[in-house]
């Protein structure tokens, strides 16, 4: 099943380091603004709507 990783911008360096550790430098993932843990449901829904086009782009392999 195709999957796309999501992370907040505070974890970009860690995400890149993990991708490199696994031998996939340049691995693509979706980034959203930090933090998310304290957002309301409405705010979370807004984030999801913002990220969906980018998720579909990565799944579809389109640039």
């Amino acid at each position, binding site marked *: 099943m195709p999957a796309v990783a999501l992370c907040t911008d505070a974890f970009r360096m860690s995400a890149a*380091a*993990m991708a490199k*550790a*696994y031998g996939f430098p340049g691995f693509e993932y979706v980034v959203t603004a930090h933090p998310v843990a304290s957002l309301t*449901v409405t705010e979370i829904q807004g984030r999801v709507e913002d990220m969906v086009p980018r998720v579909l782009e990565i799944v579809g392999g389109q640039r």
Partner: protein
Amino acid sequence: MTHPVSATLDPVEYCFERGWTDGLPVVPCSGAYLEEFLARTDREADEVVLAMPQLNRSITVRLAAINAAMAGCRPDYFPVVLAAWDSLRQEGYARKGIWQSTTGTAALLVVNGPVRDRIGLNSRGNVFGPGFRANATIGRAVRLTALNALGLRPGELDQATQGTPAKYTCCIAENQEASPWQALHAELGCSAADSAVTAMTVRSVLHIEGRHTSVAEQLLRDIVDTVSRTGALLHETISSCVVLSPEHAHLLAASGWDKRDIREFVFEESVRSRASLDRVGKGAVSRKTRWRVPIDHPDAVIDEGVDGDRDALRVLTSPDAVVVLVAGAPNAGVSSVVETFGPRGSRPPIARVEEDRR
């Protein structure tokens, strides 16, 4: 991978240039010096002491030895360092990625048995502080290995928000000679003649100023207030290592308390009211993550309290979530609570120190 030729001939500065350090100077490790460490164990140099499958990386006996040397250990400390890795492997938190987490934990190493005197491990005054090579460098070897062998560098694979000073080093010996009770390693099934290391993943070491009372229950309730503080509660429950000073240990023993009684009392008394948790926005738990959340959070569920009392919430799962040991000088009523990341019901992982081959 190629590296630029160093501009300096100073081996210590060279190690800094290459990033092989925790920020303090390291001892450059030659091949001959490495052999002195490897000669202290029967294990093969390629044997894995801790695997990190999530990173595709492993710590071998050789990597553990190189970094122990760089941390400033003497070769005769190496069996203790290996026991520390054995205990950390059994404990399991490091393998689950906790050393990379935002919480920023460290490894507390507790050493028991005759090896303490043999290599000069401090169990007395300033036990968590500086001044003793064995404590300083054995504790340091753990995180230095994580940095150099696993690549757990800040901002990269180590995502700690603030970390803790204990990440530099945190190795103590139990003051068995000043303890009125059975030593930790004996309690956990070793013989008194064994030497052993018990590793615990920890957040913070917190002081208890308890010079005010000779009433056992008052002293223990003062300790419980710190054990059950709201700031420690990310999840529903926590766990704790209570490091009693000799004065406090003897005060309790004189009133007839043993370690088991203390653990049970701390468990029973570590209860918070729902209102006190609600005041800080931790009045409920998330249905999915079981993290504490505000009562009006969309995933919030009201967790079960003590014996069906929804207003009295335990912060410990059992008396076994509390480890009790004795360390420090016999000069004041000062103890500490070490906030541990487990056990939450199972006993701590203890690893025997192998006989030094020399």
